[in-house]
C-alpha cells in the first residue's frame, strides 16, 4: 500500500500510523517495536530536513513479498538530495563526556532493520528498508 502525504509538516505520527496499519505486519510486539522505531527515525529525517519548513511531500509505501518473506518500506521525497547513510556511525564506545548528541536515528534503523538502502532517482530521495518477517 502506498500513500502520498503533502505537506508533511507535523505529519510524522500520521505517516507512522499509516505504515504500521499495514495488514502485512505480523502481530509480534518485539517486531512491531523495531519497525515503528525505524519508521519514526526515517520519517522524522525527511520531515525535519528534506524541505524548508516541511513544505513538500513524502510518499510512504509498504509491501510484503511472500516468496522472500521480506517486508519492504520505501520513503520517497523530492527534497534536498541527501543520503543519510553517508553519515558516519556514532562511536558507541566513547565515554559520556565525549559522546555526541546527534546521529543516532539512522544508526538505529541500520541496526533494527535487515537492510537499508538509499538512491536518488528522477529528482527524488528514495530510502528503502527491509525486514524479514
Amino acid at each position: 500500500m502506498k500513500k502520498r502525504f503533502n505537506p508533511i509538516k507535523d505529519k510524522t505520527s500520521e505517516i507512522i500510523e499509516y505504515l504500521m496499519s499495514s495488514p502485512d505486519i505480523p502481530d509480534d510486539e518485539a517486531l512491531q517495536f523495531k519497525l515503528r522505531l525505524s519508521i519514526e527515525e526515517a520519517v522524522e529525517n525527511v520531515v525535519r530536513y528534506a524541505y524548508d519548513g516541511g513544505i513538500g511531500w513524502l510518499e510512504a509505501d509498504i509491501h510484503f513479498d511472500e516468496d522472500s518473506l521480506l517486508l519492504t518500506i520505501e520513503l520517497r521525497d523530492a527534497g534536498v538530495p541527501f543520503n543519510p547513510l553517508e553519515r558516519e556511525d556514532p562511536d558507541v564506545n566513547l565515554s559520556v563526556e565525549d559522546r555526541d548528541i546527534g546521529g543516532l536515528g539512522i544508526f538505529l534503523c541500520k541496526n533494527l532493520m535487515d537492510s537499508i538502502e538509499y538512491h536518488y532517482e528522477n529528482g527524488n530521495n528514495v530510502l528503502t528498508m527491509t525486514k524479514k518477517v
Partner: protein
Amino acid sequence: MNSSDMEVTINNNGDKTNVTIDGRIDNVTVEAFQQSMNTLIEGNQQDIEIDCSALSYTSSQGLRIFLILQKSVTKRGGKLVLSNMNAQVKEVFDITGFSNIIKIV
C-alpha cells in the same frame, strides 16, 4: 492512555530523587519530556533514580535527552540510575552504546 501520552513524576526524597516515566517518548511527547527533564538537567540533584518500568518506547530524540542528563549529572559529580527497563527499550540503549555510559539496573 493514548499511544502518544507520556507522564513524568519527580519526587525529591531527602538526598534521593525518584523519577518515573509513564508512556512513550516519541516525536509527539519529546518536547514535554525535555521540559520535565530540564528540572533535573539544570538542577543540583546528586542521586537520581529513574524507574523505567512504564516506559514503553523511546526514539532517538528521547535518547538524546537521557544523554544530556547523564552529561549534566556526571559534571556535577552525581549519580544517575535507570531501573526496570523493558527488554525492547533496553535493546535500544544497548545498540547505541548508551548502556555503557548510563547505569542501568
